[in-house]
């Protein structure tokens, strides 16, 4: 108690002295959600991992343009035809508590990540084996070659074996565990900042790590993270100068922030793709006026829907130009070759013709058929309004949409595995591995009725083409990059010709940033304070 009081008093003194001395730089960052856990192996979610990335580090890292660069490993090599990966660890790296970082920590972190209740287990193949060669060399042994093993290791963080064992936190907490693991509220990493205060849902203070092995690009002494749920309050806090960075900025406030004297909006493309999907699996749709058959099994119907969507109007009117229309399910930032695919053109006449050919003539009231559209209304930027716009656009070709825009919690429970109870839906996807194979595997491969089996789990509509499956399986083990990319592109071209989905756009990131602050906005939307400077 007394200790806490002294700590609080000295912190207050530090904050009070900040203005006068000018030596102390404090960056204040406000996000719409909480930082729910400090445990780096517990929750596989972008913002959580991004905030943790200021404290913990992985063997690899990604630079400002998302290229893979060495992290806690200085270099690595692939041996035995891709069955053994050797990582050479950086020497002289210390955890925040002073312990050395070495091979034991890597072997320990591997085991902890593969443990039950670790959501980060997806970073590693199930059958991987970490073997200590010497104190600063680790071998990862695989059963099958994996060309993209290290692609997502920038957010697979290393923990200190001694610290974690001493605090009885050798496993991430289970969902129903009555006593949470020590690592949920405490952290001990190797990164640029250490956690000096963590009040769940109120604020988290990141203190500069003076012994960081990297040369600091930032000039911060401290970062204060505060969740601010309400968007207008977030904007007000930025405009009044109480915080330096807010994420996200509502699109309608962009102009106002840019017009203000002390802040600006940092916009950039995000790697998430927003798209619409059709139920192509059930013999009859769950909610449609068409009985006895499934209109979306007919490619002409899917293409008619696609061509009726005026993507430029959505970009201009709904997204206020903060979107890049997409031609496929992956961002060109992650797979540049996808730019070779052109969207099917917006053409209402062609769409009407396709529906006539498919055998869905207009009725007396001009309607061809009715179908439900399931949509989240609090998940993606302007997701509800996008669906409203699509509803109006499809009315032009005689499709009556019954729009069901609901909060994400209800939406996911209805549209995702294992029920997939939706005929027509809107969803967004960012490949967790930053690699196209994840899109092929999760969105494009044929799935089982409940999505189990590890393939097509988010292929909610059940799109299925054996040729795509064949390519996806080959891509998984192909080591040659050129061949691999060609096969990926072919799979996306087949999907495009099949009109398996209607890709819409990549939404833009929008951060509100004080004019005193410079920060790098990476396309994966991670707030990385070690690239921030404050005047």
């Amino acid at each position, binding site marked *: *108690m007394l200790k*806490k*009081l002294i700590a*609080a008093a000295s912190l207050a003194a530090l904050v009070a002295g900040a203005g006068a001395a000018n030596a102390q730089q404090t960056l204040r960052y*406000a996000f719409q959600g*909480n930082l*729910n*856990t400090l445990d780096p192996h*517990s*929750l*596989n*979610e972008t913002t959580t991992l991004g905030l943790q990335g200021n404290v913990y580090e992985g063997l690899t890292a990604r630079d400002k343009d998302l290229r893979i660069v060495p992290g806690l490993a200085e270099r690595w090599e692939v041996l035995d035809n891709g069955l053994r990966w050797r990582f050479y660890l950086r020497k002289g790296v210390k955890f925040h508590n002073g312990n050395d970082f070495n091979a034991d920590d890597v072997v320990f972190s591997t085991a902890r990540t593969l443990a039950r209740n670790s*959501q980060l287990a*997806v970073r590693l193949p199930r059958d991987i084996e970490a073997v200590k060669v010497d104190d600063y060399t680790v071998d990862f042994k695989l059963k099958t070659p994996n060309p993209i093993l290290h692609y997502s290791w920038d957010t697979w963080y290393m923990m200190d074996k001694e610290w974690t064992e001493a605090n009885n936190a050798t496993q991430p*907490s*289970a*969902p*129903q*565990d*009555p006593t*949470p*693991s020590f690592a*949920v509220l405490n952290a001990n990493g190797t990164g640029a900042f250490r956690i000096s205060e963590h009040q*769940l*849902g*109120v*604020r988290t203070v990141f203190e500069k790590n003076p012994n960081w092995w990297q040369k600091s690009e930032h000039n911060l002494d401290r970062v204060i993270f*505060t*969740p*601010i*749920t*309400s968007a*207008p*309050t977030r904007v*007000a*806090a930025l*405009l*009044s*100068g*109480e915080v330096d960075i807010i994420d996200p900025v509502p699109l309608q406030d962009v102009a106002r922030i840019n017009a203000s004297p002390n802040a600006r909006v940092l916009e950039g493309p995000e790697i998430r793709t927003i798209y619409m999907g059709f139920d192509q699996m059930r013999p009859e749709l769950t909610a449609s006026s068409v009985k006895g058959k499934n209109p979306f099994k007919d490619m002409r119907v899917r293409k008619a829907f696609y061509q009726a969507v005026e993507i430029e109007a959505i970009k201009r009117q709904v997204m206020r130009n903060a979107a890049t229309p997409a031609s496929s399910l992956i961002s060109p930032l992650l797979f540049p070759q996808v730019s070779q695919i052109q969207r099917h053109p917006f053409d209402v006449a062609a769409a009407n013709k396709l529906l006539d050919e498919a055998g869905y003539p207009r009725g007396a009231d001009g309607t061809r058929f009715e179908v439900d559209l399931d949509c989240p209304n*609090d998940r993606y930027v302007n997701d509800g309004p996008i669906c409203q716009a699509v509803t109006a656009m499809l009315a032009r070709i005689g499709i009556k949409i019954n729009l069901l825009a609901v*909060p*994400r*919690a*209800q*939406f*996911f*429970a209805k549209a*995702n*595995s*294992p029920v997939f109870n939706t005929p027509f839906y809107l969803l967004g*996807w960012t490949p*967790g591995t930053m690699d196209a194979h994840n899109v092929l595997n*999760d969105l494009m491969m044929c799935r089982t009725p*409940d*999505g*189990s*089996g590890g393939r097509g*789990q*988010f292929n909610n509509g059940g799109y299925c083409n054996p040729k795509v499956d064949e390519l996806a399986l080959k891509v998984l083990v192909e080591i040659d990059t050129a061949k691999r990319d060609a096969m990926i592109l072919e799979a996306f071209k087949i999907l495009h010709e099949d009109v398996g989905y209607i890709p819409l756009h990549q939404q833009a990131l929008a951060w509100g940033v004080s004019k005193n602050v410079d920060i790098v906005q990476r396309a994966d939307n991670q707030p990385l304070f070690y690239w921030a400077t404050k005047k």
Partner: protein
Amino acid sequence: MLAFIIRRMAQSVVVLLTVALIAFALFRFVGDPTQQMVSQDTSVEERMQIRKDLGLDDPVPLQFLRFIGNAARFEFGVSYQNKQPVAKLIAERFPATMELALASALFALFVGIPMGVFTGLYPNSVVSKLFQMISLIGVSLPTFLIGILLIFVFSVSLGWLPSFGRQGVVKLGSWTTSFLTLEGWRSLVMPAITLGLFQMTLIMRLVRSEMLEVMRTEYIRFARARGLSSRSINFRHALKNTLIPVITITGLQLGSIIAFAIITETVFQWPGMGLLFLQAVQTVDIPIMAAYLLLVATLYVVINLIVDLLYSAVDPRIRISGKAA
């Protein structure tokens, strides 16, 4: 008296059970909590396992009985999102909400009553008209709008008050307070006004109409005839007799202040129970929702009981009989 209290306690148990049942029924429709707990890469098999581990696949009556059984022992489980015991999370947030509610209630009373007395005594003055207008705004504008307006005037334009958060917090044992520092008061002013404005206007209007009524009665006229000072007449004789309904309303409204704090707390990012609840709704964190709803229901019941007991203290003519409720 004792019989009355016991009877009320028995009624309270029924009320709480009903709230628990309704809340539990609602949880069927808020969505699937596991969807909010896992990552997009979590396999269907693991999702099923989590559902099983949490007991979400058990029959609904069994889940309800388990919940009631745990609640009776004050066991509310662990938050799905934070992995923290719910009782601890709520205990941490409780002081913030109570202090905010207390400040709002005091604001409503100490501003509302004088304004009501004034408008009651001088119904035709310009100031009274102004007060009436303010009260109209307080009744008609929704809370979140008042909050945002205050933020834009006093934080963004004037820069006088902080726009969010609870600052200057001092720890007193297991309680946290923002009453002891200037920073604390600065961050409390706007949320308290936002939350209390509706109650203030309600009290003002109530006192005003009661005053108008009382001032016409015989005993006030006799008091004037006796040559008592107008201060003594207005406050000792008139106001005192208007206070019964004010106490009722204030008491009952204290419950709704705590419940309505959800919106104010969200607008000002005030780290109280309401904010915790709202975030729990968004992420389908059922243990937090259940515990919060039960706690608010309990507070309502307790406040109502206290109000009933206060009646007899203020007005000796009212005697609580064993039959009345």
